[in-house]
């Protein structure tokens, strides 16, 4: 390094060319957003009207009407049960799927693709759409709701668990293979302990998510608190709708507390 190098007092993070490229990317993003805004039909009068409408709705909702509180709480409990039962089944069913979908445990390429296909098809369809499907199959009620949430959860849990299996430390696996242990025992001793923390974390997270998702299942007739909410909205019974919304809010906060507590206890 020569002395003239040390005397430099100009420094730029990007070269002129890089700076131009960055401006170009910003311009493209702005253009894309502008084009997207221009291509949807927004009735601006309704947008500007929204604050007034909100105030009006709020006025109708206050005070919330607690006369049906007993029924609301009962259905809320049903909602919790839908979420919990569905999560439990989904977690169990996702174990073999995760095993198939992880590159380092799947028996062969065909099973790998079967596993991945199950994950993708489960994950690409929203819970509400699964619910519509299962309401058609099982008829309206909580069974449709449970199965819908279960189907959506298998993909979520299976995918995260499969990734956890792929990221394990392979050295204990090698060591146990060297002892002459069968495939199943190697999984039970070298792989399962390593994915246990992820397993619990993912299960709790999914239960948390399922609790929220099960509150809207009723909108398509698949059981839970959503049925009462929809009934209240359809009959313009805004005070009761307010009670339902408050109940859901309380449930979600409670779920948050429980899952945070579980995470602290188990992990």
């Amino acid at each position: 390094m020569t002395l003239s190098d040390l005397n430099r007092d100009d420094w730029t993070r990007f070269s002129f060319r890089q700076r131009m490229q960055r401006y170009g990317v910003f311009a493209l993003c702005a253009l894309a957003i502008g084009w997207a805004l221009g291509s949807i039909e927004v009735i601006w009068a309704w947008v500007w009207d929204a604050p007034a409408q909100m105030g009006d709705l709020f006025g109708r909702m206050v005070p919330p009407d607690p006369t049906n509180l007993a029924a609301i709480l009962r259905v809320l409990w049903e909602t919790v049960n839908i979420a919990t039962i569905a999560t439990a089944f989904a977690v169990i069913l996702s174990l073999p799927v995760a095993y198939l979908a992880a590159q380092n445990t799947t028996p062969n390429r065909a099973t790998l693709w079967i596993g991945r296909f199950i994950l993708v098809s489960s994950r690409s369809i929203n819970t509400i759409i699964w619910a519509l499907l299962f309401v058609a199959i099982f008829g309206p009620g909580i069974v449709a709701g449970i199965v819908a949430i279960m189907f959506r959860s298998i993909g979520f849990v299976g995918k995260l668990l499969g990734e956890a299996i792929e990221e394990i430390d392979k050295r204990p696996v090698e060591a146990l293979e060297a002892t002459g242990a069968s495939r199943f025992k190697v999984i039970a001793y070298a792989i399962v302990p390593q994915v246990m923390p992820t397993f619990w974390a993912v299960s709790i997270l999914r239960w948390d998510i399922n609790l929220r998702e099960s509150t809207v299942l009723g909108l398509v007739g698949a059981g839970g608190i959503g049925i009462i909410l929809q009934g209240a909205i359809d009959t313009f019974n805004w005070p009761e709708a307010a009670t339902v919304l408050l109940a859901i809010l309380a449930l979600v906060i409670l779920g948050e507390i429980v899952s945070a507590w579980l995470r602290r206890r188990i992990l």
Partner: protein
Amino acid sequence: MLKIRDLVKRYGSGEPVLKNLDLTIEGESVVSIIGSSGAGKSTLLRCINRLVEPTSGSVELNGTELTRLRGRELRAARRKIGMVFQGFNLVDRLTVMENVQSGRLGYISTWAALMRRYPREDIRRAYELMERVGIAHYADKRADELSGGERQRVGVVRALMQKPEILLADEPTASLDPKTSEQIMELLRALSRELKLPVLINIHNVHEAKEYTDRIVGMRYGRIIFDDKPAELDQEAMDRIYSGSPAADRAEGLKAAS
């Protein structure tokens, strides 16, 4: 007795990593394999218990030909071969006892393994061995709470739980500090005498090889070029084993092949 004949290992279509290698280990001797990185020490060890599949040749342990075994037979043969690793390869989240008992996985039923209901004699043997190497008081601790030297002791006990007919050790001291490393070498030598067990150790530390083993095998680029008592390993032999660059070796190998 371990008898290796004409062993070849080739990864892909390149130059073989092991070239027509012959090696016989008799009795309860402690044998060290030295050589620079890439000489094929690790591959040789892993060809014995088939963690690496040999390309051709024969590996015979006490009359059983290992290279052609499959499935259940291979697992039965692996029970007879204990292995100790450089990175200890313990299951961190399991207790020391569970790690130690995992050496018996080839023997016990799946249900017993899942329920952690180990046979009484296995538990007794585990306590005896752990007591012998000084880790019995850690039985209920999680493996990741132990220090490096203690973890390697767990690794050694796990291998001994198999009641092996031979013990393979792949750089067992390379992750340890000098003092702990000598303790582990001392332990391996003592256990070999006590249990009448042949031990085959890959090692980088030539001083430890000379100090703690009965016989030194020097490998260079897939071949054994030295095989004698530690006292015979003079500077000239050391130079033959360690000098030169891998590139020069490769050129030599190509010349020999053509």
